């Protein structure tokens, strides 16, 4: 039905022609093109650094392009700043910037100049009525008087949509809108996006989650190195084609060959129970990559946190090699026993963004780099150099703040930090979240290299192809329990998904 609408909208709602933009002499965009029709959901894809976010910023008036034209419904426009773009009906919604937590839902929908008032006094009843109209368009039931900060993430996203509608937005740009949503919430979000599409709104959808793109979007535009390399209908494309276009090579190379796990047990978990985790037992071997999957809320991340000592458990035992950890040992003792965690929330839990690469690595290895309570600069420099070389961290110098690096390189710093301790067991939570496809392949190769040197890697992932591709063996959790196990050469997505939903498969 979207295509029917698209057919009538022959004039693109928003068109970027030959946009170039450079920073400090380096081209971020080099003649980029994008054409979004009214009533379509248009995926904007590319590796990190391909120019997606710069293009979005040009389209929303954050940056002015060096050259090129922007056409809004066929008319050439210039966006001097964000507000001009806003007035032209172009609204970008970023996950972390979507709402104001301290004021009510109604006020969030009709913010600032939109708030109905007379003589400087807010007209609450008109405000609520008009806010309700916007929510009705989205078929959302959200209490208008509630503070927006108390809503669930998906409700907050809905409120920001409602505000965009109230602003008469004709072009919505969404950046990774599903990042913090559960599967059911994603379904709800997609339903709303489809109804917005049906009402003629043009939606630009920026995401790394290709499965979602193929489920939701009408067309895709792929960028690489600041240029637009492909625009085509989703129906005529495949995930493989998209990946190879993004990376510039074929996806078969994404996952390295599997290794051979040894039979030496590196980790034994018996009867582990705690918050969201019920009676979990398994073993992992030296040199093995063990994937753990499950739906959001299945307890997969909690299991990992308990193993890392970051969350207390109620009962059960954890044995690393021969050493049985004391009950709820805590992070420090777990680290000493040789088990380290690379957390999912890289920016808040993994690295200190304002600190340099060297300081981040030194911090996690303070015992290694110091003697008699004094920190040895030489040793820090040493392990930093080694870590950066090992992991091919792309940075100007060890003294560059981590916040300036790309997501993939930040993740490498987190890894370097943990690897400097030579852990026997490395726990990784969503090791490739928010990382572009090119760097993903590097991370997979790295995991494999670690396994080859005898490290046991236990990785939680929400992406089934990733679980199968990177692991030797996969455990699936459902409602806190292990609902299925498969060697990855025997596993396919269908089987794992069945486990995810707790279905016994014979």
């Amino acid at each position: 039905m979207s295509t029917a609408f698209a057919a009538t909208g022959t004039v693109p709602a928003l068109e970027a022609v030959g946009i170039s933009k450079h920073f400090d002499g380096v081209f971020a965009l080099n003649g980029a093109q994008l054409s979004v029709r009214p009533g379509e959901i248009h995926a904007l894809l590319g590796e990190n650094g391909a120019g997606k976010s710069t293009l979005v910023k040009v389209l929303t008036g954050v940056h002015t392009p060096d050259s090129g034209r922007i056409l809004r419904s066929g008319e050439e426009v210039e966006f001097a700043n964000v507000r001009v773009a806003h007035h032209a009906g172009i609204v970008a919604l970023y996950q972390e910037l979507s709402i104001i937590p301290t004021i009510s839902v109604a006020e969030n929908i009709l913010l600032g100049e939109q708030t109905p008032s007379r003589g400087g006094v807010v007209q609450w009843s008109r405000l609520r009525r008009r806010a309700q109209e916007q929510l009705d368009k989205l078929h959302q039931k959200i209490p208008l008087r509630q503070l927006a900060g108390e809503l669930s993430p998906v409700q907050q996203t809905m409120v920001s949509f409602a505000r965009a509608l109230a602003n008469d937005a004709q072009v919505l740009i969404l950046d990774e809108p599903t990042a913090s949503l559960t599967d059911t919430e994603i379904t709800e979000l997609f339903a709303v996006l489809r109804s917005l599409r049906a009402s003629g709104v043009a939606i630009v959808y920026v995401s790394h989650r290709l499965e979602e793109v193929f489920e939701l979007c009408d067309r895709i535009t792929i960028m690489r190195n600041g240029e637009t390399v492909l625009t085509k209908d989703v129906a005529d494309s495949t995930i493989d084609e998209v990946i190879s276009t993004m990376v510039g090579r074929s996806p078969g190379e994404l996952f390295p060959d599997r290794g051979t796990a040894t039979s030496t047990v590196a980790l034994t978990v018996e009867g582990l129970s705690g918050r969201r985790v019920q009676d979990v037992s398994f073993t992992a071997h030296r040199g093995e990559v063990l994937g753990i999957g499950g739906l959001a809320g299945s307890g997969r991340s909690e299991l990992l946190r308990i193993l890392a000592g970051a969350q207390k458990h109620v009962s059960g035992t954890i044995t690393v090699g021969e050493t049985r950890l004391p009950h709820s040992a805590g992070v420090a003792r777990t680290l000493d026993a040789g088990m380290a965690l690379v957390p999912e929330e890289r920016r808040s839990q993994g690295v200190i963004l304002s600190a340099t690469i060297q300081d981040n690595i030194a911090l996690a290895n303070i015992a290694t780099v110091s003697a008699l309570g004094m920190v040895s600069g030489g040793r820090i420099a040493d392990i930093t150099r080694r870590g950066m070389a090992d992991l091919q961290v792309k940075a100007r110098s060890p003294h560059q703040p981590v916040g300036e690096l790309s997501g993939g390189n930040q993740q490498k710093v987190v890894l370097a930090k943990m690897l400097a301790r030579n852990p026997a067991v490395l726990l990784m939570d969503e090791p490739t979240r928010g990382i572009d496809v090119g760097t993903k392949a590097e991370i997979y190769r790295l995991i494999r290299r670690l396994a080859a040197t005898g490290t046991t890697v236990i990785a939680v992932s929400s992406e089934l192809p990733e679980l199968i591709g990177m692991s030797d063996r996969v455990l699936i959790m459902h409602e806190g329990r292990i609902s299925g196990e498969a060697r990855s050469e025997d596993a396919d997505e269908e089987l794992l998904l069945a486990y995810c939903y707790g279905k016994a498969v014979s």
Partner: protein
Amino acid sequence: MTTTTTPPTAAEVPVQKRTSIGKFLVQGGTTIALIALVLFFFAMRPDVFLTFTNVRNILFQVSILAIISGAQTLVMVVGDFDLSLAATSSLAGSVAASLMLDGTSTLPAILVALVVGLGVGLANGFLVAYVGLSAFVATLATMTSVTGLAYLVTEGTTLFDLPAGFDSLGQGRVLNIPVPVYIAIGLSVVLWGLLRFTTTGRKWYAIGGNVEVSRLSGINVQRGRLLAFTAAGLISAVGGILLAARLGSASAVQGSDNLLFSVAAVFLGMTVIRSGRANLVGTMVGVAIIGVMSNGLNILGVNSYVQQVVTGLIIIAAVTLSSVRTRER
């Protein structure tokens, strides 16, 4: 406690449906702490604590703190805070007193003092919103300079012998209630209305909640912050003028304890509501806690050093209690 223990019936679905008053009452440990304090002091001295005279004493004693705390609330709503408020109030009181001793009549002297407060607020707002200094640095600096100015204006002495008409602003009574109590209540109601009903107030809340979204929604963030600081300066000047009238004298440092107490009152007030934002009703609960504590402990004859320790502990207890409640949700 009551909300969490009552299991929701199938009919009423999870969304909290409660009148704002009911919600307010069960919200935080802070309100409970205030009630507990009142009950405690009443139990200890039933013959004294809740008598008309003593309640009037408490209201009189907190009226100026209430005004300064109201000013602090505005600034904290936009997500900043103002260390210079008490100093600004002292300066305003000193300026008014100095002018009146020079022979300026009362009303113009008060107006000039108000303009001085407005000016200090404007300077703070300009430094924070337009120059981009942190509120801590900017207001710490203005606090230092403003205190210096107050020393200059008073020549380091205490100015006294102010006109009777002026003194009656602080010491006079209407219907047997001191004038500052009316002014504090009146100003609080105005500020409450300002924050709750006007677009200006709602914009302040928006700015305090998320600067970026506010900016993108066409709210002039810089002007909003400037305005909040300016209003706070003006209101603190009202407090300082009243303090001078109440004491019948003005010195450069009188009322300097109002700074920490005002911040404490706003923080206590933030624990009163679930969202944890600065709000006027909560601030007044905080002011009441501080006032009841001080009066009650005086009545019980508790050593003032011990009082100070206990006040700190009560603040910690109230904030802890309400943060525990927040976590339970």
